[in-house]
């Protein structure tokens, strides 16, 4: 049970997850995408919009802007003490007031909480022409990716099994698999193809090399074989900037742990009710 990072930045991470089952790896991926909350603009009050875009399109565009999120300051409205009525701990407000002609950027949004500013300042929201005006107030709340993708902290987030490439003695070094590999993970050496170790993780498991090998007339079984290692996964996680990737990983694991713990509690209650179970 281990995580080994081969790359870890603020907005992207690549790591090898070892010693877990398929189901757990997939739940982990799903939790990262849809159970980690982020801030996104949810309600927009439009006072004046004489631009070419309809209010709805404008609101949708505002919602998609990633916002820096500090999970210790904000709470999900459903879990807030105010019961979702709206308080400074579950939402933050932005104002925008621009007159044309100009391009309106995400940096023009004035946040009430400077820590919850948009991640990028140069996202074009809309173009204003002569005599056009845009005045609005937007409210951002925490939400989860399973409700709307604007609350998804990850962009590309996926995993694949760790590749195991074996080349047996029948390899005659014809080099056809080397030419075929789209990721250039093979090389020719000493009359036999070999795997370049630092490029092994790039393998797509596409098995084009196996097909190329068979085309070389080696028989029905290729000399090169691509297999997947069970319970070892290469994860690739990209964040949209609202949360650092290390936080996404941590929060996802905490979510899984928390739901399991709450199931245990419910089980204790059921056991207490039927009283044929010893409680822990």
């Amino acid at each position, binding site marked *: 049970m281990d995580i080994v990072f081969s790359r870890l930045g603020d907005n992207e991470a690549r790591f090898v997850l070892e010693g877990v089952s398929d189901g757990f790896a997939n739940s982990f991926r799903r939790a990262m995408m849809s159970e980690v909350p982020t801030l996104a603009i949810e309600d927009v009050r439009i006072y004046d919009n*004489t631009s070419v875009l309809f209010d709805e399109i404008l609101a949708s565009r505002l919602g998609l802007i990633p916002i820096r999120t500090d999970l210790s300051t904000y709470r999900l409205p459903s879990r807030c003490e105010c019961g979702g009525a709206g308080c400074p701990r579950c939402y933050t407000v932005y104002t925008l007031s621009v007159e044309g002609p100009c391009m309106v950027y995400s940096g023009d949004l004035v946040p009430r909480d400077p820590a919850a500013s948009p991640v990028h300042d140069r996202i074009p929201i809309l173009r204003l022409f002569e005599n056009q005006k845009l005045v609005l107030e937007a409210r951002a709340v925490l939400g989860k990716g399973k409700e709307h993708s604007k609350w998804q902290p*990850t962009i*590309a987030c996926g995993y694949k099994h760790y590749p195991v490439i074996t080349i047996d003695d029948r390899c005659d070094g014809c080099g056809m698999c080397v030419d075929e590999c789209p990721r250039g993970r093979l090389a020719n050496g000493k009359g036999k193809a070999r795997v370049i170790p630092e490029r092994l993780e790039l393998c797509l498991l596409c098995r084009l090399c196996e097909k190329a090998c068979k085309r070389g007339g080696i028989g029905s079984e290729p000399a090169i074989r691509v297999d997947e290692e069970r319970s070892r996964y290469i994860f690739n996680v990209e964040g949209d900037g609202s949360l650092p990737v290390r936080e996404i990983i941590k929060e996802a694991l905490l979510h899984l742990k928390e739901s399991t713990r709450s199931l245990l509690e419910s089980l204790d209650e059921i056991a207490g009710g039927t009283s044929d179970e010893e409680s822990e």
Partner: protein
Amino acid sequence: MIPVRCFTCGKIISLAWEEYRERVEGGEDAGTVLTDLGLHRYCCRRMLLTHKELVKDLNPYQ
């Protein structure tokens, strides 16, 4: 207007739009500009590649 995010993966692609348009109009190859701007997946590349800016044409009909 250029969509804020890539429809498929969600990457913020609108950031790259203005530079992309300027450089392509300046005669550069669209493919190299996209790679330069950090758009490596083909879902993100098609967002810019196939975009047509219409707000200016729509403006007179407000």
